[in-house]
């Protein structure tokens, strides 16, 4: 067995490569933070100031207190929409996954194969018809438009089905002897044993929705429903030229909640991604 020291020199190229790569990941973020703390004049100086000479929180404040461009309200909207969407996906997909995983019914395999085929269809095909449906239902500019249309998440069904199939059948049989019906078996036996998969899917779905741009961009048009990515896009197109520190403040502040979630759940997130990636393969 090689000692740690021996290993260190043996794998020095790995350290060097990973250190450079990590720097390349972190450096742009540091520059963004630095520029968001600079004044409008300072960012248009050459050479650029890597560390702001006169740091100010003015731009962070600006992006939270304007009339129409309010990062705090966008954040609230994003959290409402992403939380609602995550709950909807879990509620809609887990019973479907249970049916596919455990129940015998005519059409089980055919229906499941059909769902898998539809994964191949890019979601943009559905954009225009769904947009027109939102308009006809008067759902434009409501949270329903951000939550309901994507709730039938095929990937979620696929992932949960894989997981439910691994739960030993005997556990359910024990519940049957105690008098549980199909719903009881699902709710009291299978779901509590699947918290790992449910959390992984939940985090995945939440982050995906929190960062989505195209659909929220076309179905929202007021401050009351606009989500963060939409707000950032508008902030950028309205102010990019002159007010770069303010725009960057928006970008930096929008990343903070994600980083908090990431720091708390990093193990789960990374394990969840690997789990979902393997399932997808």
């Amino acid at each position, binding site marked *: 067995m090689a000692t740690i020291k021996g*290993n260190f020199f043996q*794998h020095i190229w*790995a350290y060097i*490569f*990973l250190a450079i*790569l*990590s720097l390349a*990941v972190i450096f*742009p973020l540091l*520059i*963004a933070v630095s520029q968001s703390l600079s004044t409008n004049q300072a960012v248009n*100086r050459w050479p650029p100031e890597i560390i702001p000479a006169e740091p100010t929180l003015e731009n962070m404040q600006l992006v939270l207190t304007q009339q129409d461009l309010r990062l705090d309200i966008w954040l609230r909207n994003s959290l409402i929409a992403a939380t609602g969407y995550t709950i909807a996906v879990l*509620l*809609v997909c887990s*019973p*479907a996954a*249970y*049916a596919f995983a455990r*129940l*015998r*019914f*005519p059409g089980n395999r055919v*229906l499941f194969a059909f769902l898998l085929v*539809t994964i191949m*269809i*890019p979601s943009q*095909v*559905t954009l*225009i*018809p*769904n947009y027109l*449906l939102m308009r006809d239902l008067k759902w434009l500019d409501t949270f329903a438009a951000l939550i*309901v249309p994507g709730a*039938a998440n095929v990937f979620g069904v696929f992932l949960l089905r894989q997981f439910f199939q691994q739960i030993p059948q005997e556990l359910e049989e024990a519940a049957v*002897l105690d*008098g*549980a019906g*199909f*719903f009881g078996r699902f709710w009291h036996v299978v779901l509590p044993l699947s918290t790992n998969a449910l959390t992984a899917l939940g985090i995945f779905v939440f*982050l995906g929705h929190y*960062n989505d*741009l*195209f659909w929220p961009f076309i179905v929202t048009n007021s401050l009351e429903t606009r989500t*963060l*990515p939409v*707000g*950032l896009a508008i902030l*950028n197109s309205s102010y990019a030229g002159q007010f770069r520190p303010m*725009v*960057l403040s928006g*970008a930096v502040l929008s990343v903070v909640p*994600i980083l908090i979630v*990431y720091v708390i759940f*990093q193990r789960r997130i*990374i394990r969840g*991604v*690997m789990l979902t*990636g*393997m399932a997808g*393969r």
Partner: protein
Amino acid sequence: MSTMNASTPKQRRLIPLKQQEALAAYLFLTPFLIIFGIFVVRAVFAAVEMSFYDWQILRPARPFIGLGNYEELLNDSVWWTALGNTVKFTAMTVVGTTLLSLSAAIAVTQPIKGQSLFRVILYMPTLFSVGAVGLIWVWLLSTQYGVINYGLSLIGLPTINWLGDPNMVLASLSLTTIWWGFGFPMLIFIAGLQGIPEQLYEAARIDGAAGWQIFYKITLPLLRPTILFVTVTGVISHFQVYGQPFIMTNGGPGRSSYTVIFYLYQVAWTAFRMGYGASVAVALAIIMAVLTTIQFVFINRRVEY
């Protein structure tokens, strides 16, 4: 009631167990199937149908024009520009992402200290929204005041007009996208590498195989399913690129960073031509289905050997 049924199986049931089970299954599936039926199945058929009409949102008359939209598409130079840009962007991004994420995964799976810290750092950008990533990179790549050009000038290299040069802009968007997204395939590759039995490497080392031989003879062949997954999902997701040009260049300079989805947005929500937009979306779906099939056939054939 159900307790009685369950504890006395001989007792006659109103509905036979098999049918009870099927009934329960359909009830479990109902919410999913309703939403899926309306927002996926119906929408796909509606899109195909709409693509046969001259359907403009502001005009009440919607004449059936058969394949008219598709004929227009074939002669639409903007469409071809957008498609060409998308293909170039996707090729650069998928190749770059796959190489970088595989290298990172191999480095991270060496027996080194700080593995999980490196994983956490390298995966981080994937969690950011395209809005945040786009805004951060627009300024890094700024020709006049950008930090990257400053770095180039420090080491005596000429500065580059990253987002303003029509021949450079797709590469710049691709660079941004690789930075943003290589963490996901990296984790998939790590999982794939961990699945290769250690004995294979030990046997190869005993046989005196060199490092690069081990890589070509063991790692690469056994990773083939993972590479297939990473490239197929990469092509699918990058072909749908939209946010980066939308935020960073607005399709410019000129139309040199128009992509298919960017153009779809222009057609449907700027020009309000829903029928023509639907034909753009359907054409995209067909192209992506063909691309995915080619990738599967190509990589499967090589697995047979």
